[in-house]
């Protein structure tokens, strides 16, 4: 068990540097040799609305977040209200005392519905909703409350000429790290690691670190120093960046996109890493420069069309989008299907339908990913559950696309996209690139859709062979035909490729079984829920409750036999998903006939945490058929 296990939330206005504060915390703890994992939550807004960062720190790898948190840092007058139930006795709240007299209805950035829910809580407490009263209430239930005048501390340190709002994020982060017992030098390293190139910013912020540590000293609280661990070089990446890294390692040459949350950060990241050195083997490992072309298209229809046609020149191509953009791509997806074009589409799920919850989490696009597009065509659909999986899956997506000449949808979600992960370097030798089958001889007339045993025809490219593609049903050359026998043969040829894929894709890329393999309680889930479920399972095991997790990775072709096998011996099957209709359970039922009988679902757009999975499983074991998880601000 981890000796250290800290959950921390830093909240403040959007545009107020929450992202930098998050980076300072994660980078500092990484430098101190700890493991961490953090998530950003934010509104669809540029400046002003509430955003926060939730991070957990351990000696062991962190797989999930947990409520209540050990420390809540409030950079504004909204955070203490919004997160009032996220702390418990012995938690610490650090807040800006300049907001002492702020009343709930003065927090104009807060949505009226949220204000109403908070007002109701205060009515139960029988006090006016003012920060001062809130802090009294928190103290009364054993929460440690630390007031700091952010404005005063910052102007005392940097003078009157520096705008205090620009430094409150690092001040908040520094106070929290001082109170958690992290040495000031390490916090300064973390600051330098974030603001590296901007010398003046680093110097100012280092002064803020000193002031923060001095202030915490002056409080006279006894703080246990953390045991610093050995530093090793690691990468801090978001899920968006992990996919981008995977794509580049896997040979991405052409990526298209149209801006959409939470997918656009991947392409934006790639635009910053689109020209680089690579090692050419036959030139004695000599380095040469090469690039990836990233195109911001005029819409998502154009984005997928460019990626599809680009693939027909021999380039590894991909696009990335979220629900609304994916809806627009549906017609072109079928085009890639009937024309057997290897294209990769990374789908970052967010709350729907329509614009829905544009910056919040969801797993409600699984059935859509499996069925998008009219008619029937083969597609491969894979899902990742953390940054490392995302890197390798991005490579596999290309390999599957080219090997089977099908569109591949790689499903991610908002929690994955916007979480910070600290990972080790991925060794290039571990990246295996598998490409298409090429025509054997140039003498015979090339047929793009030649009938073969496997249904897979040798690949041809614009610029190499002469051939035709059409969205109409076609003959082996690629010309239009409505001949019924050819239609049957082409349908069967295309669909057969999924049978081949089913045979060739290894079990570990289809599903993983965790926990006690012979447990009678089985959990099925996918995507970013993996971590919180594994942590909740560990907690249940401590109480003698054995569980196993069947974690699904491949949804098309669906591994029916393997899933049925993995579920054998289950007395109860619990489905855990972030959607209303339990979509993965429906897919399991469709393909195996197995009924999932218990459901733990969440559709409020917020991340699933260890504690609520644990609590919900207990409720199910106590007889509930369905639990809806509701945590998160």
């Amino acid at each position, binding site marked *: 068990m981890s000796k250290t296990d800290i959950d921390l939330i830093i909240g403040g206005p959007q545009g107020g540097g929450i992202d930098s504060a998050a980076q300072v915390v994660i*980078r500092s703890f990484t430098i101190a040799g700890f493991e961490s994992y953090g998530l950003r939550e934010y509104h669809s807004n540029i400046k002003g609305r509430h955003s926060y960062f939730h991070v957990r720190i351990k000696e062991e790898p962190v797989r999930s977040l947990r409520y209540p948190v050990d420390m809540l840092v409030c950079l504004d007058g909204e955070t203490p209200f919004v997160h009032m139930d996220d702390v418990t006795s012995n938690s610490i709240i650090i807040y800006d005392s300049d907001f002492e007299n702020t009343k709930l209805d003065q927090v104009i950035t807060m949505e009226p519905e949220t204000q109403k829910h908070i007002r109701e809580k205060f009515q139960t407490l029988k006090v006016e909703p003012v920060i001062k009263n809130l802090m009294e209430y928190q103290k009364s239930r054993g929460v440690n409350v630390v007031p700091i005048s952010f404005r005063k501390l910052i102007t005392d340190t940097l003078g009157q000429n520096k705008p205090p709002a620009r430094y409150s994020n690092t001040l908040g982060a520094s106070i929290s790290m001082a109170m958690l017992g992290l040495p000031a030098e390490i916090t300064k*390293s973390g600051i330098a690691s974030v603001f590296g190139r901007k010398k003046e910013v680093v110097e100012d912020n280092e002064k803020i670190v000193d002031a923060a540590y001095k202030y915490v000293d002056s409080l006279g609280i006894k703080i246990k120093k953390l045991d610093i661990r050995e530093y090793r070089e*690691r*990468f*801090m*990446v978001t899920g968006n960046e992990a996919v981008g*890294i995977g794509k580049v*390692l*896997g*040979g991405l*040459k*052409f990526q298209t996109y149209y801006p959409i949350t939470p997918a656009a950060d991947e392409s934006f990241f790639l635009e*910053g*890493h689109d*020209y680089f050195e*690579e*090692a*050419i*083997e036959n030139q004695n490992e000599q380095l040469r420069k*090469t*690039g*990836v*072309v990233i195109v911001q*298209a*005029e*819409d998502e229809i*154009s984005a997928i*069309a*460019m*990626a*599809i*046609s*680009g*693939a*027909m*020149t021999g*380039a*590894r*191509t991909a696009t990335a989008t979220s629900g609304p953009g994916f809806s627009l791509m549906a017609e*072109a997806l079928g*085009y890639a299907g009937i024309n057997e074009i290897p294209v990769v589409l990374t789908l970052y799920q967010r709350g729907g339908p329509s614009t829905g919850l544009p910056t919040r989490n969801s797993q409600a696009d699984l059935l859509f990913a499996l069925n998008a597009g009219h008619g029937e065509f083969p597609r491969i659909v894979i899902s990742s559950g953390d940054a490392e999986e995302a890197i390798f899956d991005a*490579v596999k997506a290309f390999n599957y696309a080219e090997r089977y000449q099908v569109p591949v949808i790689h499903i991610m979600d908002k929690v994955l996209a916007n979480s910070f992960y600290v990972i080790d370097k*991925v060794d*290039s030798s571990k*990246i*295996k*690139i*598998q490409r298409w089958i090429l025509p054997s001889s140039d003498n015979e007339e090339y047929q793009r859709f030649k009938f073969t045993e496997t249904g897979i025809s040798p690949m041809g*490219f*614009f*610029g190499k*062979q*002469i051939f*035709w*593609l*059409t*969205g*109409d049903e076609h003959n082996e050359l690629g*010309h*239009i035909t409505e001949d019924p026998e050819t239609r049957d043969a082409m349908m069967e040829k295309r669909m057969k490729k999924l049978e081949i894929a089913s045979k060739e894709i290894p079990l570990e890329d289809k599903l993983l079984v965790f926990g006690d393999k012979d447990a009678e309680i089985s959990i099925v889930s996918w995507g970013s829920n993996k971590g919180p479920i594994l942590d909740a399972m560990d907690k249940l095991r401590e109480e003698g409750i054995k569980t196993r997790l069947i974690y699904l990775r491949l949804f098309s072709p669906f591994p029916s036999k393997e899933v049925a096998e993995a579920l054998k011996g289950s007395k109860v099957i619990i489905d855990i998903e972030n959607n209303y209709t339990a979509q993965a359970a429906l897919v399991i039922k469709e393909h195996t006939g197995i009924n999932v009988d218990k459901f733990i679902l969440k559709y409020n757009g917020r991340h699933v945490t260890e504690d609520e999975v644990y609590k919900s499983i207990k409720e199910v074991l106590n007889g509930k058929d369905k639990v809806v998880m509701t945590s998160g601000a």
Partner: protein
Amino acid sequence: MAHNFKTDLWVDWCPGCGDFGILAAIQQALAEYNAKPENYVIVSGIGCSAKTPHYVNVSGIHTLHGRAIPFATGIKLSNPNLTVILDGGDGDLLSIGAGHFVAAGRRNVDFTIILHNNGVYGLTKGQASPTLPRGTKTKGLQRPNIYDSLNPVALALSVGYTFVARAYAFNIKNTKDIILKAIKHKGTAVIDLLQPCPTYNDINTKEWYDQRIYYLDQEKDWDPVVRKPEEEEVEKKYLQAINKSLEWGDKIPVGIFYQNEFVPTYEERIKQNFPNYFEDPPATSQISKKDGSAIVDMENIFRDKIVRK
């Protein structure tokens, strides 16, 4: 032996269709341009015009309704060394694909757009297309058209196309010459290709066009080419083209309206960041070592993501 640019398929357009003239002009232009046959790609959308690639013996990609431009863009940007020609209808390019038509003007990717303009949606029985004037009642319509028409030449000019021309399907020689010039143009070329639809457009017939068309290259003093990369010269040629584009009715000008070789192509803009883009394009760039492992190194490319002490 010279490459045969015809496929052996039966061409299934209606007798008298303007597409026959356009097809012949394309085949002749490709032969005359003389690139390697494998290096041509013909892209089309949906509709009668969209069948064109199947009838030309070079690679063809018959795509989705309205999406020929993004498909052509993906091909050209992945392999900038190919010669890409696009056939789209007036409905295809100016209605369902209008957003792409505008974006393409801003990009200036080096390909040629042949806009088959007959005023109707032929394959769905003659509905009005964006180029059919208001008040016109062609025989497929229940009542006269209540949409205003748009001016493809003026639209193309206003969104930045660097080569804008008009041709007439039944003058194959002139059409071939214009297509050839469009292919040679560095940047996106658009040709408003007037063509009768003998089945559904009984107003703008061959006879109707024959009485009205005149040729700009036979006009004294007509020079559509921007001669110097100077603002004044560009503005002069641009305004001249806009003015000329407004001529329609008793006299219809055919020929090149505007040509500017000084605007960098999108490919050249990519090259700014990626100097060996043309020599090592996405299409043919090596991506793995002989043993199939990655050629690139995470630490080398993504070093900014390393948490340094």
